[in-house]
C-alpha cells in the first residue's frame, strides 16, 4: 500500500511528464530533451514507489545509504545543468555581440 506522500509524488511526476509532452508539442523542447526529462520523471516515480531500488543500487556501488546516492547524483546533475546554462548564456552573449556589431557598422553607413 502506498503512503500519501508517495501518491502525491507519483501524481507530481505524472503532471511533470504531461508538461514535458506539452512543451515538446509546442516545440519548446527538442526530442533529446523531451526523452531525457520523461526518463528522469519516470525514474523518480519508480524510486518513489519502490525506494528499495535505490538502496540496492547504493549497496552495489558501495555507498552506504540510498539517500546518499540520490544526493550525490542530484548534486552532480545540478552542477552539470549549471555549467550547460553558463555555456548557453555565453553563446547567447556572442550572438548578441554580432547584432551590436552589425548595428554599429550600419549606423556608420547611414551617416
Amino acid at each position, binding site marked *: 500500500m502506498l503512503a500519501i506522500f508517495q501518491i502525491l509524488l507519483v501524481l507530481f511526476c505524472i503532471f511533470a511528464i504531461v508538461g514535458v509532452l506539452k512543451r515538446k508539442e509546442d516545440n519548446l523542447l527538442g526530442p533529446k530533451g523531451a526523452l531525457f526529462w520523461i526518463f528522469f520523471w519516470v525514474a523518480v516515480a519508480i524510486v518513489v514507489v519502490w525506494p528499495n531500488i535505490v538502496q540496492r543500487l547504493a549497496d552495489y556501488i558501495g555507498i552506504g545509504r540510498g539517500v546518499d546516492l540520490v544526493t550525490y547524483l542530484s548534486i552532480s546533475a545540478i552542477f552539470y545543468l549549471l555549467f550547460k546554462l553558463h555555456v548557453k548564456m555565453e553563446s547567447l552573449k*556572442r550572438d*548578441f555581440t554580432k547584432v*551590436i556589431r552589425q548595428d554599429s*557598422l550600419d549606423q556608420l553607413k547611414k551617416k
Partner: protein
Amino acid sequence: MFLAIVPAYNEEKRIGSVVQSLFEHVDKVLVVDDCSEDNTFEESKKAGAVVLHHKINCGQGAALETGHEYARRNKAEYVLHFDGDGQFDTNDIIPALQKIKEKKADVLLGSRFLDNRSKIPWFKKYILLPVAQQVGRVFGGLKLTDAHNGFRILNINALKKIRITQDRMAHASQIPELIQKYNLNYVEFPVKVTYHEYGQCTVGGLRIMRDLIIGKFIK
C-alpha cells in the same frame, strides 16, 4: 591602407590625444566606442577618427573584432591594435610595421620584455605575467615572451583568418591560439608600455581563464 583600431571605453580624457598622435603613423584611425558613459565618442570624432559605436558594452575583444570587420570591408592591408588609454608609444608603430614587412610575417605581437623601456609593477612582472604566459601556452601553444600585450599588427592574410569570438579580455589569449591554429607567421617586437592604471588584476585573470574554458564548449 594601414588602419589603427582603438577599442575605447570611458577614455574621454586620453582618446583625443591618442587619435591625434596616431595620425602621424597610420593612414586611418578607427575608434570603436564600446558604449562609453562619457564623451569618448565625441572626443574621438573631434580628433578626426572614424568612430563606431556599440550600443551595449560588449568588451575589448568584441570591439577589436568590430574593427576587424570594418577593416575587411574597407580592404585594409594592415591593421594596428592600439589601446585608447595612451599606454603605448606611437614611436613604436613605424619600426613595427617595417619589421612585419621585412620578416614577411602575418602578425606582429608587441612585447614588454624584449627591452627594458617598460616599468612593469613587480607583482605583475613576477607573478601574474608568468602565470598568464603558462595559461597562454596551455590554450594557445605559442611560446611568447609576453602575455596579453595589446600592441599588435595584422596583415590582410591574418585579418581574413583571425576572427575574435572572445568578447572580453580572453581575446588576448585567443589571438595566439588562432595564430597557431592557422599556422600564421608571427614575429615579436619590443614595445614600450607606460602604466596609467594597474590593468588586469588577479580576479581579471581568473575571469579570463573561465572565459577560455567556457569558450571551448561553444560551437
